[in-house]
């Protein structure tokens, strides 16, 4: 899966989110991403991560093996 696709899916579902992504191994399968999104406010960490996984429409854990995820709300 390409980094740009991941960013595109997340931004589509979480409008206004700032996504920084890093390809950990250059194999299209292991990424680290940090998502800053207003809509995370008041949500638990699990819920925040679930929102990101939902935006990836089932690719997480299948096509995309590893996405080290960090979520936060804008300062």
């Amino acid at each position: 899966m390409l980094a740009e696709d991941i960013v595109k899916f997340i931004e589509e579902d979480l409008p206004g989110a700032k996504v920084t992504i890093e390809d950990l191994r250059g194999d299209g399968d292991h990424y680290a991403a940090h998502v800053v999104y207003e809509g995370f406010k008041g949500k638990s960490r699990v819920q925040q991560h679930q929102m990101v996984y939902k935006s990836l429409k089932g690719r997480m854990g299948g096509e995309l093996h590893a996405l080290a995820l960090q979520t936060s709300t804008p300062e």
Partner: protein
Amino acid sequence: MSDNPVFDRIKDYVNKDDIVLFMKGTPIFPQCGFSSVVGQVLQHMAVPFESYNVLEDPELRDGIKEFSDWPTIPQLYVKGEFVGGCDIIREMFENGELQQMMTDKGIKAA
């Protein structure tokens, strides 16, 4: 929740022990880096926990993802509640939140 037959089994597991880790492999022989990290965190905190190897139980491997609405393994449960996967557990451990949670829930190191 759908009436997936494995849900009953999962409910038993997560309510039988205070800390339950669904992982790939076992704490002694983890077969995935992410599962290994969570196992090490728990061993480091010296808290008693039960682990289930999803690699030996395909029905559990899929069922747990539906049960918690979380797409990956490992998955950690404390007192019947889903706490998170590798990223969240590592983040909580690093900022002391995990230790605080155990204390708040009355779970003592062995």
